[in-house]
């Protein structure tokens, strides 16, 4: 023990260096988004494949719930199919609208790592650039509800900045009157079942249990149901009111997600980037 102590005190400069330098690197990675994303991306492949193995076991445990939700989704799709068929049979002429028809395609992906307890939650899925997934694509959950945006992509995996993240904000609207707002999480509320809608003007009348849907601005297709209003309050001295909503999807049991490929996203972005800067 004494020898060890002598050794450490003889080369104390080196040990101090290690300690302080490590502290510096940790600070760098914690506080700089760019460095963190690069470090994450390189470890992503390794960690991702490890989690995939671990998840094989976990999937069995939740099989019952997944079955239920798949059955529900099936039923819903069947109902819609029947309804659509009915419309078709009553029509005599068909209008082919190829511009709108296939704007969005969905890619199903399995969640292999999920977190709901941190302030900034990241989800990892088992599809990556080989399946055509790109940065900033929207991600929705199977039944109802939004999940987030693709943050980083490697060949076989992708990370998703989930809605439960400080940096995520999604353009949403009230189903009944199309008032735009933005859906955010955090800000003192770290319950994964709740989120906030901001930037709804004060003069709009909202009721409890009104449905919130995505607005179609941004990468999400219009009309995905996000949640119901659970609390309204008027902030004094502000011309906007924050709404608290209960999310339809449960992030804690999320197993499958759909990544939304928007065929026209690139076209829209190029067009919009030609605009002169508004500021």
């Amino acid at each position, binding site marked *: 023990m004494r020898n060890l102590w002598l050794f450490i005190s003889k080369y*104390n*400069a*080196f040990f*101090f*260096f290690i300690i*302080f*330098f490590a*502290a*510096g*690197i*940790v*600070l*760098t*990675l*914690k*506080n*700089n988004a*760019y*460095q963190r994303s*690069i*470090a994450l991306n390189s470890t992503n492949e390794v960690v991702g494949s490890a989690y995939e193995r671990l998840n094989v076991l976990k999937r069995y445990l939740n099989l019952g719930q997944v079955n239920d939700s798949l059955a529900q989704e099936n039923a819903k799709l069947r109902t819609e199919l029947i309804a659509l068929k009915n419309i078709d049979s009553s029509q005599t002429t068909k209008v082919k609208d190829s511009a709108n028809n296939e704007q969005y395609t969905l890619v199903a992906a399995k969640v292999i790592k999920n977190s709901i307890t941190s302030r900034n939650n990241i989800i990892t899925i088992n599809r990556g650039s080989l399946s055509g997934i790109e940065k900033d694509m929207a991600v929705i959950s199977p039944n109802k509800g939004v999940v987030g945006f693709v943050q980083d992509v490697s060949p076989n995996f992708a990370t998703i900045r989930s809605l439960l993240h400080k940096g995520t904000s999604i353009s949403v609207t009230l189903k009944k009157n199309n008032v735009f707002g933005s859906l955010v999480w955090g800000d003192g509320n770290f319950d994964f079942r709740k989120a906030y809608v901001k930037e709804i003007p004060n003069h709009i009348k909202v009721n409890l249990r009104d449905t919130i849907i995505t607005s179609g601005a941004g990468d999400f297709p219009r009309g995905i149901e996000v949640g119901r209003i659970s609390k309204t309050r008027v902030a004094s001295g502000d011309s906007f009111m924050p709404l608290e909503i209960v999310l339809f999807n449960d992030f804690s049991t999320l197993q499958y997600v759909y990544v939304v490929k928007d065929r026209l996203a690139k076209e829209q972005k190029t067009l919009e980037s030609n605009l002169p800067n508004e500021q």
Partner: protein
Amino acid sequence: MNSRTIFINIFRWFVLLFVQIFLLRNMGFYNLSTPFVYVLFLLVLPFGIPNFLLFLIAFGTGLTLDAFYDTLGVHTSACVALAFVRILFISVSVTRDAFDEPEPSLGNMGFKWFSIYAILCILAHHLVVFFLEAFKLNEISYTLVRCLISVAFTLFLVLLVEFIFHNRKAN
């Protein structure tokens, strides 16, 4: 270490960081070279300073600069690396009797010793800064060129400052 040394060093800290943050921050040479003259403060800290205190001061100085540069951690790590190189170089090259000098400045130690000392320390600092900033090895040649040109720039300014303020004994 008497109170006068402490006061001078605190004064130097404020002046160098002020110059770095409000003047040199806005200076650059075609985006290739940025001088970081504030390292001079760490270079000329007195000989007798304990290692732990030196690392602590380097850490704090880097943290302060990072707060203004919005690169939290980068300069902190770089300053710690500089402190380590400083300790190594001094323990290798300085004989016991040279410790009579209060601090390793240009006037006390001579041009040759000081310039080698400054080059090594500044190089360590800049390597860490630029590689942490780039954080990948893809553009290694570009990073290295930026780093070396900045070392030259910083070294020039450091020697300039030293010649102006510390040349009493050499004359």
